């Protein structure tokens, strides 16, 4: 077994286990339904993954710094509802920055609680999940939000527009991924995020302002959520209060599927993008194959575990865990 992992193929697996897993799924689904690789379908999957993807980019920062963010789904509902409501009141040009500001305030609150007060992020964001949901309901009075003039607004460009044949949401997702990927991999700030997540005490001993770094990761996360809310609102020009509900676990699954460790200190933006695409293609592929939704649940379970297993098996160089 040890031999295998140091051979050429094994080496590839070890470095890019998750990519290999991705390739295998794609081949499997294509065999099952030839339309799977249809360019329109692929474009469609990427486009509808873009919203989840944008949120996952932000959560990647949070997870690498050793925390969790379960509030993103509920926060996304908030952004969507707010921007839709403000669109008709103050116009899109003001609504968008206003919505971003409000969402960033929520992110700052979480960042303050987790970073500066050092409260446990799972519980803080779980609490915020609930509190923000309450806030959204209060804001909207429980009603759906819809833009009155759906045809006449340029607001739809973010969710529905195209540039050179590419849907704008995909472009925004990829541009943001590239930007944040570089921030994480190449800047001093990115380095600090890894250090804080890898060993917070050692980071403090190295003169890193840990609280500030954690605070910043939640700001980034909330900025991503606001972007996702914008895409969502612009895509459908109307929304329910529950639009993002439950997405927090999907987002987390994508980030982890990409190989980020919940203990912090590891993961990359590139891998998260792969994780997002895997989730998107699994859902789409299973729909195309025509499985009942509950069979999809079971298959998704198996695929998630296989993918992560393959990834860590490659990293440790053996299939089975060494734990006795």
């Amino acid at each position, binding site marked *: 077994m040890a031999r295998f992992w140091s051979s050429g193929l094994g080496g590839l697996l070890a470095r890019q286990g998750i990519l290999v897993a991705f390739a295998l799924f794609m081949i499997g689904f294509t065999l099952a339904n030839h339309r799977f690789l249809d360019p329109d379908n692929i474009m469609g999957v990427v486009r509808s993954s873009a919203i989840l993807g944008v949120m996952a980019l932000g959560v990647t920062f949070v997870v690498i710094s050793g925390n969790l963010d379960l509030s993103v789904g509920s926060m996304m509902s908030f952004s969507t509802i707010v921007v839709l409501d403000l669109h008709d009141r103050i116009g899109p040009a003001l609504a968008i920055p206003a919505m971003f500001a409000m969402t960033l305030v929520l992110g700052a609150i979480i960042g303050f609680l987790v970073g500066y007060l050092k409260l446990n992020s799972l519980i803080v964001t779980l609490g915020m999940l609930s509190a923000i949901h309450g806030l959204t309901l209060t804001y909207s009075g429980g009603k759906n939000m819809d833009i009155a003039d759906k045809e006449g607004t340029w607001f739809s460009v973010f969710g529905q527009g195209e540039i050179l044949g590419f849907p704008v949401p995909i472009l925004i997702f990829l541009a943001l991924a590239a930007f944040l990927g570089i921030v994480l991999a190449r800047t*001093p700030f990115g380095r600090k995020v*890894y250090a804080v997540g890898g*060993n917070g005490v050692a980071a403090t001993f190295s003169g890193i302002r840990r609280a500030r770094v954690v605070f910043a990761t939640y700001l980034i996360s909330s900025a991503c959520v606001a972007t996702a809310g914008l895409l969502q609102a612009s895509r459908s020009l109307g929304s329910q209060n529950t639009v993002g509900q439950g997405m927090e676990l999907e987002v987390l699954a994508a980030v982890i599927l990409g190989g980020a460790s919940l203990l912090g*200190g*590891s993961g990359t933006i590139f891998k998260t993008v792969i994780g997002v695409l895997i989730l998107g293609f699994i859902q789409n592929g299973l729909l195309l194959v025509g499985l009942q939704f509950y069979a999809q649940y079971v298959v998704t379970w198996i695929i998630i575990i296989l993918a992560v297993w393959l990834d860590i098996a490659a990293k440790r160089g053996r299939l089975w865990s060494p734990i006795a």
Partner: protein
Amino acid sequence: MSGQQAPVLRLEGIVKTFPGVRALDGVSFSVQPGEVHALMGENGAGKSTLMKVLGGIHQPDEGRILIDEKPVVMASPLDAKAKGIVFIHQELSLARELSVAENVFLGELPRKAFGLVDWKKLNDDCAAILEKLRVRFTPQTRVGDLSIANQQMVEIARALVHEAKAVIFDEPTASLTDAEKVVLFDVIADLKTHGVGIIYISHRMEEIFRITDRISVLRDGTYRGTLVTAETTEEEITQQMIGRKLDLTRNIRPVETGDVALEVRGLACGDLFQDISFKVHKGEVVGFYGLVGAGRTEIAETLFGLRTPTAGSIHLDGNEVTIESPVDAIRLGISLVPENRKEQGLVLSMNCRDNMTLPQVDDLTAGPFVSDGAEVAIFDQYRDRLDIKTPGWRQLAGNLSGGNQQKIVIGKWLSMKPEVLIVDEPTRGIDVGSKSEIHNLIRDLAAHGYAVIVISSEMPEVLHVSDRVIAMYSGRITKEFTAAEITEDKLIQAISGLNGSSGKDAA
């Protein structure tokens, strides 16, 4: 202890590779019953790896293990334990939230019916062991509340739980002070008379000559031979270990007092330490010596902005400063090599280079980005200077040997070119060659006008590098010596308090 008896333990042709590293390359050696067998080698030579193979933690790629001349397979730590191998680890391997007794008997708590813990037996058995170790804590103490040295004693207590065939001590004294060392050596002597084979890993020559019978030497994962302790010399051993002669001559230098770089007046922090006043001049090395728990680490942490003083003031170059965080300290030119490399010094999941440049990553930039070239340059410089053994800068810090990890931490803070450098137990777990290199580095820094504080529990080290030594007892400075007036006796007297009992560490 010669070869007429059958060896209790024998390793033959052990090979172990990690990705990119051939950690062991055909190592063979054997241990007689009742023998203390030293295993020596530079940092990263493969000592711990060899012992982990023996302890069932790693599986060897090739080679075999024999106990009482019968080949065995050590499938797991449990398996090794069942076959009579007790392993005292280099890195503390304790559950901090549990009591001392539970840690000593971890994995084999005495049971009553229905899987209940027999608390009475547990605590009694543990108390008996602790008594042999002459420690001042009880079986019920939470391990997390103990000092590192006492935690190390808890590890050592595990060796006495069983009738073992062989006991492995992997650098047990790295964080012990002399008093506890004496106890440990008594324990080892006792095991010896019971015919137990003992493998003893240490970088400290005086211990090797004091307690071992034979010495096997590893270099770069290969076996270099076995020496009989009584018939060899320090020079011969180091020759074997590093393949060249080492100049161990003492390096005493006249005190050249520059301006005062750091002055501390009446500093106190709760009941951790009180009334601390001292000066460190430019170009001077000041040693802090004291028993474990004397409060030296806490002073260093306060100077580095990690604790808030409750009284007193700190002055740098004659100006009073407030240091509220390590960020402030670093900005003011203070560096701290912390006591605990795994918890405080390193991000184990990060590579060696990134660890080394972490405190200055903001300055190593080209535009908005971290400059690869600048980082690698720093890493290469200190790797060469400190002789760090790693396949490359991409190796994760967690995969380095203990000594090499320590060197990364030292490199990290030396590369900051600090005005005031504080090093807390700087050579814990460092091999002889590198140790003298680090000592030279410290002297060298001082010669360039830096002020250096060395906190160490090793008397030879303190004596060797310091221009002045400050002795502490129970949170207070008891005495200050210049290099000229110091003797071992005076020092011991100064750190042991008046009535001979240390109050603080009694927990």
